[in-house]
């Protein structure tokens, strides 16, 4: 095993609790070490010595691995996942509105249309927030506010359905699922915002 491969294996072990972070870091470190070794080779070193020197210049893998914030990237990906789930719920509602409700419950179609539109809008805003990062204040505050509402609505939907089921009413599992996705989306966005703002404050300080 070459010194660079051995180093990357040690680094992979140090980052093993966080595969999402590990993947990106390892790709970037591999490129960095290859460039550093290339530079050393140009100065006359053998391949092996050049890689040894590149690894030495980079620093110890355990110290390096522990300097990363381990939470932001996983929460970013979780937020992408939750926002896709929110879109899926919106699409499912469109299907229900178009196929099921006209014959069974036509008077509630406007309400469910509004709910579906809300799901799409929330997902769209979350995507904009993820793409533009946490640096646009109005977008951040809008997503934060909607997320708080989403958490409240999610909890309300779940609790309400549990109470209805307990009192002998008709249990509708999709309400629980919608509550979980909405509440989970809101909670993830909230945690992601708190983490990124904490980092931004530390950088500015």
């Amino acid at each position, binding site marked *: 095993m070459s010194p660079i491969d051995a180093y990357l294996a040690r680094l992979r072990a140090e980052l093993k609790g966080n595969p999402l972070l590990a993947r990106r870091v390892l790709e970037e470190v591999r490129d960095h070490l290859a460039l550093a070794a290339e530079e050393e080779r140009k100065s006359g070193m053998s391949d092996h010595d050049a890689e040894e020197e590149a690894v030495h210049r980079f620093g110890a893998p355990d110290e390096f691995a522990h300097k990363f914030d381990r939470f932001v990237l996983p929460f970013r990906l979780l937020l992408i996942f939750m926002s896709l789930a929110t879109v899926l719920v919106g699409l499912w509602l469109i299907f229900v509105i178009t196929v099921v409700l006209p014959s069974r419950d036509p008077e509630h179609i406007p309400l469910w249309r509004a709910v579906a539109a809300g799901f799409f809008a929330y997902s769209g805003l979350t995507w904009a927030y993820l793409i533009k990062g*946490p*640096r646009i204040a109005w977008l951040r505050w809008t997503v934060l506010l909607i997320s708080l509402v989403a958490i409240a609505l999610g909890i309300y939907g779940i609790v309400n359905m549990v109470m209805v089921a307990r009192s002998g009413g008709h249990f509708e599992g999709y309400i629980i699922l919608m509550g979980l996705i909405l509440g989970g989306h809101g909670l993830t966005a909230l945690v992601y915002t708190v983490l990124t703002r904490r980092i931004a404050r530390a*950088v500015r300080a």
Partner: protein
Amino acid sequence: MGKEPLLSGQIDMLLLSLVARGPAHGYAIIAQLRDRSRGVFDLPEGTVYPALYRLEAAGFVESDAEQVSGRVRRTYRVTRAGRAALKERETSWRELVRGVDAVLRGPATGRA
């Protein structure tokens, strides 16, 4: 005194300043830091990445990955918020330097 503890609070500002001069990948950024500081900041090269990830999480830089020679290379560029944060940090840094300098160079006022 080791340079790393002294630098730990300033690394973000220095990296932001380097990225603000033009898009660059991590290896080029650490090389610029070493060259521009004339070797004063000759840090372990890995130091740059956790700081770049912090800046990206804060929304001060953004990055793109591309394939180069079969490897993934990530290039960082400053955002508008990053430029604003840099300006803020630069102002407070210059004030600090002016203040320290004034104290160090000021006339002796000690009592006998």
